[in-house]
């Protein structure tokens, strides 16, 4: 069981110590997160909670194999046994197989960042069941060029106009809805013009454009849980030292 870790409560025990061991201390918190969470975490992280924060390139999710290696490398570079918060979802199995080593890992239990931007797993499942043929646009994906319009331009350059169009049609003709999702109004506004350009292109498959305002509730809980790991519920995956992230923990 990954979640049945006992974390010593540091304060009230001091007077009762009978042996010579050091007082139990909280693990230092280290954050390794996708850039998509940067703004949210900057606002939500209380001073002094995280010893170290690293934001990783937006585009890693496009290459899950490389994502596994990059994130593992970051984890392995943390010298002192720590509570490492991974600001990621399973991301196309990008986290599958990552080893905790001497650290404890805390991860939102979600397939990808859409649930994080929507504010909860429930919100994501609701949207998903309502309309499976949805392509989500998030700030991270717009910034990293992971959207149909950017892809089209990339393919035109590589394969020429005719093949690019054929590749795009083959990949996207079944989608019915394009949704810009953001955790706050400001981001919705900021990315609306870009999203609408993508939406105009996606008209070729009759995709309709919608916006969904999510929240930072999931990210907020992640920060709270990082400060008090024993409060981790089923919305989080906790991997103890020596453990490994496995897909089953997310399913």
């Amino acid at each position: 069981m990954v979640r049945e870790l006992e974390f010593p409560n540091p304060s009230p025990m001091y007077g009762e110590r009978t042996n010579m061991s050091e007082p139990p201390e909280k693990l230092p918190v280290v954050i390794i997160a996708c850039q998509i969470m940067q703004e949210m975490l900057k606002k939500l992280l209380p001073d002094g909670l995280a010893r170290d924060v690293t934001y990783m390139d937006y585009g890693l999710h496009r290459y899950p194999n490389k994502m596994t290696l990059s994130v593992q490398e970051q984890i392995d570079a943390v010298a002192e046994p720590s509570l490492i918060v991974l600001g990621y979802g399973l991301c196309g199995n990008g986290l599958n197989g990552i080893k905790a080593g001497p650290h404890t890992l805390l991860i939102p239990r979600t397939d990808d960042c859409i649930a994080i931007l929507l504010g909860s797993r429930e919100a994501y499942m609701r949207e998903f069941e309502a309309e499976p043929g949805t392509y989500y646009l998030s700030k991270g994906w717009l910034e990293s060029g992971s959207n149909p319009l950017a892809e089209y331009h990339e393919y035109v350059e590589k394969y020429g106009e005719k093949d690019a169009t054929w590749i795009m049609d083959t990949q996207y003709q079944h989608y019915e809805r394009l949704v810009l999702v953001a955790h706050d109004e400001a981001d919705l506004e900021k990315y609306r013009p870009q999203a609408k350009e993508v939406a105009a292109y996606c008209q070729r498959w009759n995709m309709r454009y919608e916006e969904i305002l999510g929240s930072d509730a999931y990210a907020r809980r992640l920060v709270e849980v990082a400060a008090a790991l024993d409060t981790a519920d089923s919305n989080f995956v906790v991997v103890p030292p020596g453990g490994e992230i496995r897909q089953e923990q997310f399913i």
Partner: protein
Amino acid sequence: MSEILSELATAVIEGNSDDAIDLTEDALDDGLEPQNILDNGLMPGMDHVGVEFRAGNMFVPEVLRSARAMQSAMDVLKPLLVEGGVEMAGKILLGTVKGDMHDIGKNLVGMMCEGAGFEVKDMGKNIAPEDFVTAVKEFNPDIVGMSALLTTTMRSMGHTIKALQEAGLRDQVKVMIGGAPVTQSFADKIGADGYASNAASAVDLAKQFAGV
């Protein structure tokens, strides 16, 4: 392998449809058997693509182009293969599971299995468990292949297997599953008969099930 067949494999790998067609016709003109061209030119090319894709060295657009090149060559060969009266290896029912709109990988499996001599019925995408059940009754396949590209939709593979059980059909078919997030341990967990990590392994698995 003759030089022309290895050139054909390269045309498939590079996604060059025109070359694939020309080389197939040249090979036929040289007197090579259609089955030989398929087995030793097209299939090895596509095998390579599947493995490289899974390893992260090839990407979706390249795989699509390769699949198209293979399909173009298949269009030339298929009438000849049928004419030659090739014995069918078995029947495969294919579909992408409920809630999932991804069909590129599944289409590829379908094409490769056809190439390997199976009769393939492709139900398309977003197929509910009860629709798989109905299709198994109607088509009477030896093998049911399910695809899912999302961890969110993988669960539906388990639901489909359960639905087959409840309909009393589970024992008459082999179930194989695949798709980017799918793993062998997931296949074991939901009681599938097999898992394939790429289209070429799906063909091997299907052959193994069919005993050919």
